[in-house]
Each structure stands twice: as structure tokens, then as C-alpha cells.
């Protein structure tokens, strides 16, 4: 058995290592991913072991990184691209939205786009502007992309494996403030489906749905609620495109109440789609409207205010209470 305790960061590093090792077509590209091993050290040691030809320090130009990754994919490679921080993906947005996402459809299926775009995202690390954002909705809205985010080390390891194996472009959001959280990883396991949600905690009275960094907060909230006698189920969505609505629906049909939590702004965040669709699917089951807890319609604030901006235990519990009060 090969179960190891490791951090999410380490799990990602191991996962990249395995991919580079198994498939000679896999490449790792990005700013500072080589000698430095990335600003978060996710690619630590990879260039040393796989060479500059496979682990590529790129010029400082995100559009160029994704654009050349597309070309490499057309040549048969499977590039795994690193965007240094969430806020710096936008120069590449055109290449992602108009080219990467649409190439397979444009070619009527005759070319594939096995490109993974890794993006450390979210706040809570006390950073300066552009280093704490959660832009996932801006990708999930775009057809042709798949969008996922792991919440724990095991998922980090396996979801990245699966993303790299996917013939579709995957935007892989890494919960940067959880990079150092540890968990068990079974590197020999047979993983589940990449886009399937996971019931992270069972409960009967209300469902919390979240992904990435917010799963931990929701689990804590569920534990706290349990002390008050409220039984809260937590669904780790794992994928924002597609969203596994079936799992959420099954949970809500049981609990009859749903609160969606993410760091991204609530307005047109992933929670809006989940609220809309689950309300359609469970109209006669819901005892309360789907509530959402998330960021505000404001630029991500300076570090010394971010704790107020980020959904924390209290704000989630407040929403739980409000939902239960219906």
C-alpha cells in the first residue's frame, strides 16, 4: 500500500513528477517553474530531474505561454502551464477563451487540446493586489473549458493526474492558502471521476456546497453546527464545469436546504448557477431559498481587511441559521 501523508503542494509536485515520468509528451511551462521551482515550489526539483526541455521557464508573457502551449498541443504535447497567481491569468484570457476553449469544436473534433492551466487562487495569504482572487466563474461560463479545484491532498494528486490525461483543456484552480494542509494520498488508488462531487460529511438538516479552499471552512462550520444539534451535510463540488448537479440534488432532496459557499464574489459567482439550477430541480423540496456566502462586489481588499471579506466560519453559520429559520 502506498498511502502517504503529504501537503497539497507536495501532492501536486508528486503528481506532476509522475506525469512527466510516465508520458514523455507531458511538459511543464511557466514563469519561474524551472530553477526556482515556482513561487510556491509546486514544480520544485522537476527541471533538475526532467531537464529544461520538459520543464520550461518561459518569458514573462501569459498570452505567449498559453498560446505556445496550444501550438505544442497541436504538435502532440500535453503542456501543463502554470499561471503564477490568479490575478495574472487575464493577459492569457483571450488565448484561453477564443483559442484553447474553441479549437476542438472549430476543428469538428479533429484536433484535441490537452492543456492544463494551473492557477493558484484565492485569498487568505496576506498578499498584495492581484494575488488573492477567485476568477473561476469567468472560466466556467466558457464552453470548451473544464474547471476544477481540489480541496485536499488526495484530490490534488489525482485530479491533476486526470486533468493531464484529459483531452480537453482543464483550468485547474489550486487553493493556495491550503497548499500546506496535509492529508493522506494513496498514489496507487483507482481514482473516481474527475467531475464527480463528493459528500465530504453527511448530514440531514442542510447542505453546504463548496469547493477548493472553502471546503475546510464548511467542514468546520458543520462541526460547529453539530455542537448546536444541527446536522449539516457538506458537498465538495470538486468541479465547477461541469458541476455535478446530481450529487447536489440528491443531497438537497434529503436536507431540503442549501447554502453555497465560495470566495469569489457572489454576484454571478458559481453559486448563482447552483442556486438557479438546484431551485429548478428541487423546487418542491426546498424549504428555503438557496443562500450564498461569498465575496462582495468589490475588488479583493487589502490584506488587513481580507478576513472580513473572506467567508469564514461565522458568515457560513449565519447563513446556515438564516436558512434554517425559513
Amino acid at each position, binding site marked *: 500500500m502506498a498511502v502517504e501523508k503529504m501537503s497539497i503542494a507536495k501532492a501536486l509536485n508528486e503528481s506532476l513528477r509522475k506525469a512527466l515520468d510516465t508520458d514523455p509528451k507531458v511538459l511543464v511551462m511557466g514563469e519561474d517553474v524551472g530553477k526556482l521551482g515556482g513561487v510556491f515550489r509546486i514544480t520544485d526539483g522537476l527541471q533538475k530531474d526532467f531537464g529544461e526541455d520538459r520543464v520550461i521557464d518561459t518569458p514573462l508573457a501569459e498570452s505567449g505561454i498559453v498560446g505556445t502551449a496550444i501550438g505544442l498541443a497541436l504538435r502532440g504535447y500535453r503542456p501543463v502551464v502554470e499561471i503564477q497567481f490568479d490575478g495574472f491569468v487575464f493577459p492569457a484570457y483571450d488565448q484561453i477563451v477564443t483559442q484553447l476553449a474553441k479549437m476542438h*469544436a*472549430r476543428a469538428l473534433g479533429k484536433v484535441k487540446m490537452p492543456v492544463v492551466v494551473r492557477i493558484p487562487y484565492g485569498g487568505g495569504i496576506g498578499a498584495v493586489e492581484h494575488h488573492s482572487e477567485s476568477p473561476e466563474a469567468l472560466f466556467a461560463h466558457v464552453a470548451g473549458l473544464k474547471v476544477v479545484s481540489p480541496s485536499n491532498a488526495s484530490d490534488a494528486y489525482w485530479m491533476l493526474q486526470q486533468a493531464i490525461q484529459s*483531452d480537453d483543456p482543464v483550468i485547474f484552480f489550486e487553493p493556495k492558502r491550503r497548499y500546506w494542509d496535509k492529508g493522506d494520498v494513496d498514489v496507487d488508488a483507482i481514482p473516481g471521476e474527475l467531475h464527480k462531487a463528493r459528500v465530504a460529511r453527511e448530514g440531514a438538516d442542510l447542505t453546504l456546497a463548496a469547493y477548493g479552499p472553502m471546503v475546510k471552512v464548511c467542514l468546520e462550520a458543520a462541526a460547529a453546527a453539530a455542537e448546536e444539534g444541527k446536522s449539516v451535510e457538506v458537498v465538495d463540488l470538486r468541479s465547477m464545469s461541469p458541476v455535478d448537479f446530481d450529487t447536489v440534488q440528491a443531497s438537497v432532496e434529503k436536507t431540503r436546504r442549501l447554502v453555497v459557499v465560495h470566495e469569489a464574489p457572489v454576484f454571478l459567482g458559481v453559486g448563482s448557477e447552483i442556486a438557479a439550477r438546484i431551485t429548478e430541480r428541487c423546487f418542491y423540496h426546498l424549504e428555503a431559498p438557496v443562500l450564498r456566502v461569498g465575496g462582495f462586489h468589490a475588488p479583493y481588499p487589502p490584506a488587513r481587511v481580507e478576513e472580513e471579506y473572506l467567508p469564514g466560519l461565522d458568515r457560513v453559520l449565519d447563513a446556515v441559521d438564516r436558512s434554517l429559520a425559513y
Partner: protein
Amino acid sequence: MTVESTAARKPRRSSGTKRATGKTAAAAQAAEPQLVQLLTPEGDRVEDPEFAPYVADISADDLRGLYRDMVLTRRFDAEATALQRQGELGLWASLLGQEAAQIGSGRALRDDDYVFPTYREHGVAWCRGVDPTNLLGMFRGVNHGGWDPNSNNFHLYTIVIGSQTLHATGYAMGIAKDGADSAVIAYFGDGASSQGDVNEAFTFSAVYNAPVVFFCQNNQWAISEPTERQTRVPLYQRAAGFGFPGIRVDGNDVLACLAVTRWALERARRGEGPTLVEAFTYRMGAHTTSDDPTRYRRDEEREAWEAKDPIARVKAYLLASGGADEEFFDSLESESEALGKRVREVVRAMPDPDGMSMFENVYADGHALVDEERAEFAAYLASFEEGH
């Protein structure tokens, strides 16, 4: 001192100016730098010790071949324009006037080279053996391209200006990784030179020494904007600042385009990295069939360029040199007619795609939401059939 300016640099044939000011730079632009030319508009061969050797192997037969390529491409193009007028196509982007640039560069390629076109490279497609009718699907509105790029190493047309130059660079990086000696050619326009992506492609290709030829067809216009809205110095000069050579060629001279592209491709194959070729040419027609060039350019300009027609000069040379006789021209005429007929027939027979096709190929590995929407839409359509 280390001041660098366009004006300070004196390419052998260009008319440099002395002082590095905005004004003199503008002057440098006005005084057109000379360009590589092997065949004059009048159909005379030009001595050029540097580039003539690159087409020394071109026999009369080959030249007739190039001529035929250009004539058939033009015919195809005219047919497509007519089909648009008849409502069979929604739009057409004519290459009229750019045949030499496209056939010359296209015929310089080897089968294993890879092409990244814009939306106007019908002549290059022809050289690659892409059936011309394949190109019409997207202009008719039945697909967004849809041919298999790998069957002729000819990528899909790219509409977002400049994007494909990065794809070309990445593809070329892949060739280098594979240790192959193929090369890539990326087409783009004078307007495209302003896009960040094109300049990033220059940076990436130089840094990785990628085997790519950037082939800029400077047809003088980006829709209604003349090249001066994009640059105040000749475009080929852009390359030097990124660390690779740039060269200007007479884009209406098929031999010069062939020679210069061969030279650039050889550099790429030899591991010498990227080259920028600026083919100086002219868009004889409208930007597309939606455009009305009378709003922004004078007839005289077009007329001046008509005298430099890329096809006429080859014909003149073939006739004068005895490289072709009337029979050749006649039989080409019939071939041309036949092509026109076939194009018309194929286009008119192109079926509209089924509505449900829009759910296909969104993903290679499937996507639950697409499946759900497909099922819902199918049920919705079925509800009409049931007379619902």
C-alpha cells in the same frame, strides 16, 4: 553612443536617413526601402546573387506550375466572391492581388512543414493540397473551419488577429523538441503586427530559437487603416529588435517570394531560428465582401498596383522566354472553368448542418452539462413533432 534607431541603421538597399527623430523615421517610411525582387512588373528577370540561387532549380515547367497555381487560385477566389453575391456564402475574404505572396511562399514548403494561416490564405491552402471547397464552409456558415489540420499540415483559419502566430511558435518549439528538421510558417497581416500576441510570438520564437518563419503579407491595409496606423517604419525591421533577421520581398513577385521563403525555411531547418518575411503587396479588392473600400482609399492607388499584378508579370515572362505557348494558356483556361464549375456545384450542394450538431465536439471527453442541454433541446424539438 549606443543610440539605435531605424534611421541609424542602413540595410544595404534601403534609403536610410540620418537622424533618429520622429520626423526622419516617418521620412524613412515614406522613402520605401527596396525589396528583394527577381521578376519585375514588366516580366524581366532581375539579377540577384543572393536570392536568385534559391530558385535556380525552377524550370519552365515549374514556372508554369506557379503560374497555374496563381491563376487557379485567383479563379477560385473570384468564384467565391461571386457566390457570396449570389447569397451562397455569408462572407468572403478575397486574396486578389496576393497570389504571388501566397503561392511563392506556399510552394517553398515541404510536406512536413506546418502552416498557420489567417483567414485569407486560400492560395497557401491550394499549395498544401487542401481542397478549396473545404475553405468555403466557414464562409457559408456551415462550420467554423472543420477540416483536419493534420491531413495537409494546414491549420484552421484563425480570425482573432494575431493569435495563430503563438500557436505557430509553440508548434515550432515542438518540432525542435522532437529533433525534426521541419519548419513552421505563420501568416499574418500588416494590421496584425500591432497585436501583443504577434510580438510575444517574436519573443518566444527568438528565446527558444524556434524554427518558424513569420510571413507578413503587408497588403497596405487593415480594413480601412493604412499601414502608417500600425507602424512608422517598414515592418520587416521589427524583427531585428527581437534578435532575428527581417527581410522585405516584392510580394507580387512569385519567384522572389519563393526564394526568400526558401531561404528563411532553410535557416529554420538549420537551427538558426525565426525569420520575419515582409511580403510587400496590395489588397486589390475590398477587405471582405462586407467592406466598401471607396470610403477610405483612392482608385488611383489600386490602379498603380494593377500595373504590378503578380500574374501578368509571369505571363509576360513565360511568353517572352518561350516558357509557355498558347496551348498552355488555353488549357489552363478550361481547367479554370472546370474548377469554377466544381466550386459552384459543391457549394450549392453543401447541406446545412443539423441543429443538434452544435452540441457536438464542444468537448473531446464529454461534459455533463452539454449532455443535459442536448437532451433537453432534443426533447423540445420533439415536442413540435408530436404536434405539441
